């Protein structure tokens, strides 16, 4: 399978999400100009441009890491490790794969589906999708770190790190219960 770029290049440069934030920015800026006056408008604009410039090196680093990690990852091994008999080790492998998957939902969810057809169980699938949703390296490094204070990002990642494996484990317990039920 071909390596995916962190942000699928099939994405349009201007898409719905970009239009939404452009609209929010434009409307908010206009309202600030009208309600609070020109001075406040320029202060906020300059402040945020300075902040953005300070962030820029971090963003570029995050993008580099997000691009280089999947190139160095042994994909075939990851897939071999997520079998239904894989126990906790398999669930952790599924979680780590989910964290490392560099794509958006259009890449990740079909990949999880494909892995489940190829032999991963429902628990591994749910673990992988949950890990990607909660902890995706790509999104955390590029987006979350860019917008939110790093100590909060670290706290959130630390608190949710075990959640994907816990959900997968619960799925396996539920399935066991169903098999035992008369």
């Amino acid at each position, binding site marked *: 399978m071909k390596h995916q*770029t*962190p*942000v699928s290049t099939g*994405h349009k440069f201007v898409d719905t*999400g*970009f239009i*939404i*934030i452009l609209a*929010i*920015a*434009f409307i*908010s*800026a206009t*309202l*600030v100009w009208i309600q*609070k006056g020109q001075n*406040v408008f320029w202060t*906020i604009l300059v*402040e*945020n441009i300075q902040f953005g410039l300070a*962030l820029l090196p*971090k*963003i*570029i*680093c995050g*993008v*580099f*890491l997000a*691009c*280089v990690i999947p*190139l160095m990852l042994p994909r075939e091994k990851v897939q071999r490790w997520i079998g239904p008999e894989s126990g906790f080790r398999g669930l952790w492998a599924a979680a780590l794969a989910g964290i490392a998957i560099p794509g958006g*939902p259009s890449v990740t*969810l079909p990949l*999880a*589906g494909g892995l*489940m057809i190829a032999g991963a169980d*429902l628990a591994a*699938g*749910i673990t992988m*999708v949950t890990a990607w*949703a*909660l902890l995706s390296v790509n*999104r955390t*490094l590029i*987006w*979350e*770190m*860019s*917008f939110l*204070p*790093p100590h*909060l990002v670290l*706290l*959130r990642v630390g*608190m*949710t790190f075990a*959640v994907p494996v816990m*959900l997968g484990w619960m*799925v396996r317990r*539920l399935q066991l219960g169903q098999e035992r039920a008369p």
Partner: protein
Amino acid sequence: MSILIGSVLLWAASLTIARKLWIEDREVLREALRRMVSTSVFIIPRVAVGLIGSGFLAELLPQDNIAMLFGKEAGYMGVMLASLFGPLTPGGPFVAFAIGAAALKAGASEAALIGYVTSWSLLCLNRDLVYELPVLGARFMRLRWLLALPVPFIIGALAMLLT
């Protein structure tokens, strides 16, 4: 200051990997850099617009209301309310994080922000109806949603204790 620490850590990791690849496999390094450029072209305009927009939005948000609804004084109710808004947020990650950053600037508590980001990432309604339901099926989505539903409320409560 925290930006500086984050930058230093990220640069250290990047330079270590880049040096390793420069010695071992320049082809991979070249490919990574090529992807870095094309990805940056996609991302930097979004972060820029998101940052500036969230700056203006924070100025407009009624600070008293945000602080009242999601601030420290709102306690766990604020965390719960913030967690309920997560799945309803439309658009990509920059929309959710820009909203979160704006609310934080306007006085929302850190625990409420963590509840919001957790519920948005776990249970994004827009994303799951568009991708998860058709690709992985109703059983998968139902089971995952059911199991994940309590998580933001628990994480938000933990965050209240830790922040």
